């Protein structure tokens, strides 16, 4: 049991789960209704569900971002690609029609496939710049971070394109088995990426490339291909996220959709325990990281913090969480554990078991 307790506390997920738990606990104390979940018309409603639902766009971006960061890169373009996905999908639905209508100009599955193909290609391009031309990831993805929104504006004609096509609204606003559809989409994306990363050798290759690209190459890994794949996955994630986002408001907003989301996605990844220097990655951690960010945002607003100071509070909490995860604090924690001696660890383990 003590072994389990130690494994749990030394796990990468533990500190991020703890952070999430503390933030939620804080909410419970100050807002008694926080945990209540009610069923209305066969739908679950409540603050927790809301946090889960609203964190989905960043969560999906963070899943793609995690793989990119694991290779030692960064994808700054995913926020802009999210906006691009909204613009592409809604403009395809509207076709040449200039008035708002409830029909689609193209079969709906084709709309989704083309949208994802566009953002996937953008991701592939990022990967090409990084892997084949050797451009630094921040610079390479900066291109689409700016150009992505430009392309979105070209497509929408610099207006906020809207649609009333009902099936489209299902993606971001629909319900399934008591829960909002986006939660299922996020779970699906997570499972697919997780399976691909952890049930094939891909995750191992990503980590090898992230830790030591040269040694990975000498071991026969095609690092270029690995890098191109992770950026493509990140692009695809941005596409999915963009569909959910635009469907949520039934509008393609080239300027503001997913603005600064890439930074939230990076933050979620780091909060989840993946190091910016590359190597070991934790997809589950990134999901928790996205939840932390959303829970934090929600609680800040719930406490009537003025919007202009909300970011300060957020920054403060983030600093604390990142500090807890820093090697310095980890070392302190480990040494205090050693000093306490194995006997006490056993005791605490037994305490947990009882």
């Amino acid at each position, binding site marked *: 049991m003590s072994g389990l307790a130690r494994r749990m506390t030394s796990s990468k997920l533990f500190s991020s789960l703890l952070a999430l738990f503390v933030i939620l606990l804080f909410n419970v104390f100050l807002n008694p209704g926080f945990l209540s979940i009610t069923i209305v018309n066969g739908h679950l409603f409540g603050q927790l569900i809301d946090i889960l639902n609203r964190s989905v766009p960043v969560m999906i971006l963070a899943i793609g971002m995690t793989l990119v960061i694991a290779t030692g890169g960064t994808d700054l373009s995913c926020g802009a690609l999210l906006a691009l996905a909204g613009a592409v999908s809604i403009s395809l639905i509207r076709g040449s029609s200039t008035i708002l209508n409830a029909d689609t100009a193209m079969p709906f599955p084709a709309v989704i496939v083309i949208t994802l193909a566009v953002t996937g290609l953008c991701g592939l391009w990022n990967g090409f710049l990084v892997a084949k031309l050797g451009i630094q990831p921040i610079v390479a993805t900066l291109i689409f971070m700016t150009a992505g929104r430009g392309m979105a504006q070209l497509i929408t004609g610099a207006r906020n394109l809207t649609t009333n096509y009902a099936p489209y609204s299902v993606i971001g606003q629909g319900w399934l088995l008591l829960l909002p559809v986006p939660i299922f989409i996020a779970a699906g994306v997570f499972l697919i990426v997780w399976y691909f990363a952890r*049930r*094939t*050798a*891909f995750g*191992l*290759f990503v*980590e*090898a490339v992230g*830790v*030591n690209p*040269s*040694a*990975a*190459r*000498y*071991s*026969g*890994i*095609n690092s270029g291909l690995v890098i191109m794949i992770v950026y493509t996955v990140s692009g695809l994630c941005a596409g999915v996220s963009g569909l959910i986002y635009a469907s949520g408001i039934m509008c393609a907003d080239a300027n503001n959709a997913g603005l600064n989301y890439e930074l939230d996605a990076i933050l979620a990844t780091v909060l989840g325990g993946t190091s910016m220097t590359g*190597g*070991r990655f934790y997809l589950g951690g990134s999901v928790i990281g996205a939840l932390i960010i959303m829970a934090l945002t929600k609680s800040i607003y719930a406490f009537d913090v003025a919007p202009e100071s909300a970011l300060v509070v957020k920054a403060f909490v983030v600093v604390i969480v990142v500090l807890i995860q820093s090697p310095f604090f980890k070392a302190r924690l*480990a040494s205090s554990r*050693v000093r306490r001696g194995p006997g006490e660890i056993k005791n605490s383990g037994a305490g947990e078991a009882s």
Partner: protein
Amino acid sequence: MEGAHDIPREDILLEASGIDKIFPGVHALKRVNFTLRRGEVHSLMGENGAGKSTLVKCLTGVYGIDGGIIKYLGREIRPESPQHAISIGISSVYQEVNLCPNLSVAENIFAGRQPMRGPFVDWRSLEERAGKVLERFDISIDVRRSLDSYSIAIQQMIAIARALDISARVLILDEPTSSLDKLEVEKLFRIVRSLRDDGMGIIFITHFLDQVYEISDRITVLRNGELVGSYRTEDLPKIDLVTKMVGKDFDELSSVSRVRAGEARDVIISLEEVSAYQSVENVSLEMRRGEVLGFAGLLGSGRTETANLMFGIEHNSSGAIKLRGTAVKLSSPKDAIRNRIAFCPEDRKRDGVIGELSVRENIVLALQARLGIFKYRTLRQQNELADRYIKLLGIATPDAEKKLGDLSGGNQQKVILARWLATEPEVMLLDEPTRGIDVGAKAEIMKLTLDLCREGMAIAFISSELDEIVRISNRVIVMRDRTKIGEMEEDGLDQESILRAIAGGVAV
């Protein structure tokens, strides 16, 4: 053996007594005593994991100590960081060059203590002083160019120059010569001697026994974190030193000798007049089953480049590479691995070790790369594979999940070997496989090489240590100036004739 008590007190620069250092699960230093006198070169010897580096890191404040006392000039000190140690007067140069490759040479030497003129860096004086410092080393280079435009050897000298310029009383050199050639080593030793004559105390760590005897006044031997003893160099014959290091009568290296090759040895891989742009010219060779092919030559003679060609890292511009008689194009390491070729690279740290990953992951990596993404070995299969090789090669690790970066150099090298053995290669290219590892592990690696040879593998053994090449090679290729200048059969193979060939370019 002598104790600290018979040294006049004023001669003692640095005295560490009863040093304890405990890492989680490892008692790395057990009440170790160490005394450094004014004006001596003191070699710290021991196998990998004996605690040499740990002791040095305790002395320089990289690690805190868990017990014992460090005295500097009779006063107790507690260095908290390398910077702190430097300010006390203890400077160190580590095996790996810890400088900034993108800064200029001058900036590297003076980083953190640049001469200032008001609020600005006084560049002219900075460069002048850097030039003067390097003059002492007989190095005349443009100090304004970035560090990475110079060879590792020069960078190493610059690292030492940096440590020296800080007016230190104690200088620690941890494996400073592993990337230097003979001339550069001589140059370094000249400097070390002159520093010693100025009254500096120098702690010297190396795995080259000859160098220990050439330069040091005293030798302290550690084994498994414990002090074996301190000796005057002239009182400790080489064989005794090695015995004390490994803790048993040592004649392992001398017992290593080549496998007599059988009669029928078919050629597996051959190069026919292969040239590559800016790499090698007109190299022809054959590697046969069950045979060790030694590669002799100085650094930069084209040995590594030839191996790179056979592993698809470099590409030939003319000539042909043939596998069992058929010409092949090896465009990437992946191609080579698919053709059952394996390669232990020279720069283990840069091209071999994936430090953050576990021993298990490092071992399965090449096999997995050959199998592809979707034929993922299950965790159980991976563990079986890892455990098998950990046992087979005697890799000293608590378990397969230990980070490879935490193992000692010799064990890291064994893990890299295991990585390749797991791919079941027919051709094994070993580039300096014994560099930077201790004598015991060296003998093990060489024995292993011979075992593989006996099993029918074709092995290329590249080494700067002619002694090793002569011991285990069936044939030796001598290279100079990026081309092959000779080939010798095992009969009549000796260091002399190889040296003559390297020096004179006379084909034998």
